[in-house]
């Protein structure tokens, strides 16, 4: 008899999702001025989770006004006082982490193991970290009294809904800005729960405003003349549109966009751990990660060995119910994203790359894509150039370190890269030459609030996290 794991579902009862939610403006939930609503579904079951308000131009206006009003007193608070609110928010997030993890897995489709062990601890850590900075801005290297920017308009993606919120909101508030945040259309719920946490923490009204909606809401927000700063995380295409909108105004802009990261495995790599790193690099969060290691560059002399190990490991990945504690790969976030992944994977086959996926049974409802790898991929293939944003790995080979660098850099993106070798000097040599915002050595997809994160080239500009992350929200 095989050791089959019985279902181990995390209880849904820990989270109470209301049938409908309004917009969070000036400390209150209210319906959209136009009365428009949309539904948020669970991508693993297609079940409707809640109906949320769809913010239009009037709502954006109201939210920006509320943020502007709150700004004068919030920015005048001593840093230590702002820090107290942020510490309080961080503690409440920790206390409510189980509830928020379940909510995130329901709305996003990511496995509970990841929302519980990665997303939520990082969310709290981000608030704790920037809470600590709030009263130390005078010592951050920008003179004795760096000033905030004003009202920040923030638009975040659906892949790490609450974590991306934390990356945006925590430094903005610590520096004395007020915010209007628009969560992604497919994952609005955790931001609305965060609104409730702001109230629980007694945060002054108007400091944080949450507008749910689709791309049009985001476009209204970034175009609004009343904001001083735009921060966006999402696709390069939308990022470019935002840059065009903001051009010619005095709004400050930071963009964190797509990626096509190379995960580079040398012949002296610790093979078992490299395979884990490859898996974590591309299959973490269903590959819905802007810094995913979606291109595996493996040295030709060990390619067969590494691929054999990788396939064996991929066969043990457990795809299914995001709320099952033993699930490794959850649901694709939306039908639209699934269609995009499917189309790009099909192009890989059509262009002559060899497709492989382990035998795995996918649930009949919801949006699913089996972990997949392509061998025989060349730099000319679409799957080597375009961001797939799904659990699809393109495998390329190289012969020398110089060739690895050349291939790794041969992309319009430059967000992250990974190096696997036991040779320390080679890590330093490579890190120096790779044009990527983050270079991981013998690990991948490791995040920490103290470390700045951001891109080169079409992956965007500006840094989030660390001391560098403050700069995006200070007038310096």
């Amino acid at each position, binding site marked *: 008899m*095989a*050791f089959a*794991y*019985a279902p*181990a579902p995390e209880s849904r009862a820990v989270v109470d999702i209301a049938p409908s939610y309004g917009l969070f403006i000036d400390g209150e939930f209210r319906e959209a001025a136009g009365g428009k609503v949309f539904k948020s579904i669970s991508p693993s079951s297609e079940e409707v989770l809640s109906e949320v308000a769809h913010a239009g131009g009037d709502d954006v206006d109201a939210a920006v006004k509320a943020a502007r009003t709150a700004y004068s007193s919030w920015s005048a608070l001593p840093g230590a006082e702002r820090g107290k609110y942020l510490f309080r928010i961080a503690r409440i997030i920790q206390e409510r982490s189980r509830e928020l993890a379940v909510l995130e897995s329901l709305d996003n489709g990511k496995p509970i193991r990841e929302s519980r062990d990665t997303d939520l601890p990082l969310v709290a850590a981000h608030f704790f970290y920037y809470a600590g900075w709030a009263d130390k801005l005078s010592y951050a290297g920008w003179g004795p009294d760096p000033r905030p920017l004003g009202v920040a308009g923030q638009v975040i993606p659906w892949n790490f809904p609450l974590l991306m919120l934390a990356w945006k909101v925590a430094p903005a508030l610590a520096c004395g800005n007020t915010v209007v945040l628009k969560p992604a259309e497919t994952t609005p719920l955790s931001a609305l729960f965060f609104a409730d946490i702001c109230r629980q923490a007694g945060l002054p009204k108007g400091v944080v405003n949450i507008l749910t909606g689709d791309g049009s809401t985001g476009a209204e927000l970034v175009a609004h003349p009343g904001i001083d700063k735009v921060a966006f995380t999402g696709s390069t295409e939308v990022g470019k549109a935002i840059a065009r909108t903001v051009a010619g105004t005095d709004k400050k802009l930071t963009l964190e966009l797509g990626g096509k990261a190379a995960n580079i495995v040398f012949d*002296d790599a610790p093979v*078992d751990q*490299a395979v884990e*790193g490859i898996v974590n690099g591309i299959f973490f969060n269903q590959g819905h990660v802007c810094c995913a290691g979606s291109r595996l560059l493996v040295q030709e002399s060990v390619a067969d060995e590494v691929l054999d190990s990788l396939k064996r490991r991929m066969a043990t990945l457990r795809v299914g119910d995001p709320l099952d504690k*033993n699930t490794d790969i959850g649901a694709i976030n939306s039908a639209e994203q699934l269609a995009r992944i499917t189309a790009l994977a099909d192009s890989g086959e059509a262009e002559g790359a060899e497709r492989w996926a382990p035998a795995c049974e996918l649930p009949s409802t919801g949006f699913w894509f089996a972990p997949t790898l392509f061998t025989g991929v060349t730099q000319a293939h679409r799957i080597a150039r375009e961001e797939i944003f799904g659990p699809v790995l393109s495998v390329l080979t190289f012969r020398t370190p110089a060739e690895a660098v050349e291939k790794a850099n041969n992309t319009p993106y430059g967000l992250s890269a990974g190096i696997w070798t036991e040779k320390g000097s080679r890590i330093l040599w490579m890190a120096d030459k790779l044009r990527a915002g983050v270079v991981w050595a013998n690990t991948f997809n490791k995040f920490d609030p103290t470390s700045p994160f951001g891109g080169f080239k079409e992956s965007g500009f500006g840094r989030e996290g660390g001391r560098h992350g403050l700069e995006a929200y200070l007038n310096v």
Partner: protein
Amino acid sequence: MADVTASDAALRRFLHGLPGVDAVGLEGRAAMLGTRSIKTTAKAYAIDLAISMIDLTTLEGADTPGKVRALCAKGVHPDPADRTTPRVAAICVYPDMVKTAKEALSGAGSPPVHVASVATAFPAGRASLQVKLADTADAVAAGADEVDMVIDRGAFLSGRYMQVFEEIKAVKQTCGRADGTSAHLKVIFENGELATYDNIRRCSWLAMLAGADFIKTSTGKVAVNATPPNTLLMLEAVRDFRAATGVQVGVKPAGGIRTTKDAIKYLVMVNETLGEEWLSPQWFRFGASSLLNDLLMQRQKLSSGRYSGPDYVTVD
């Protein structure tokens, strides 16, 4: 792979040419597997499997025939109140207790509970080869089904790999019986003394090349014994060894595994690293003493729905 053991230099080149181990990555993988949630039917399966994999151990200076007989009785009927409880795999004792254990288990029927004997100047291994072989021969002559030897850590750490290799081979030979059969040889590394993961991987290959039937983490007598990462590393080594040679070798973590939760974590590692083929007492063992009672209490909880207590399992 005979050529890699043809000379001291060849053996050293081979062992030092094995892929390195990244400690952070290895520990991360072991920790991730430790988060698997094993419930209901899976838990019942794992508990029974774990019981059947135990080498129920007493290795004390104060061991007496009475103590060993009590342990043997427990190994055959771990839970006197529930005869459906599986037997343990073996009773593990010092060589001078082998005879007592064999006698105590003689009428136990099937499936057999084996007698494992530590040998080769356990636990330090600081004796001449002659003494170690005599120790082994003594245990085999007394009827030991399995021999748990310790390697010469001093020789390994000073880079005398060939000496360690030859010693294991000699002990393996001494495990042979007159009728042509042989006691199963488990080779104990003492991971806590080898200290680095690279050493543990090298030692795994060294022992397997020398003919080990099982590789075993530790004696249970030092500060660091079996840990999930060092056991995971050995599981990867037996997997790779079989891929290279076709020979399947077993793994035995020992020391420090005291709870059902811990034991299940190890079984999850076996399951997801090696698969079903290693999920039997023939290929995986736990060297433990107090673990059994915790498994029994959890087993009672699963069948009755409530926790019993330490007075509802036997103390030996």
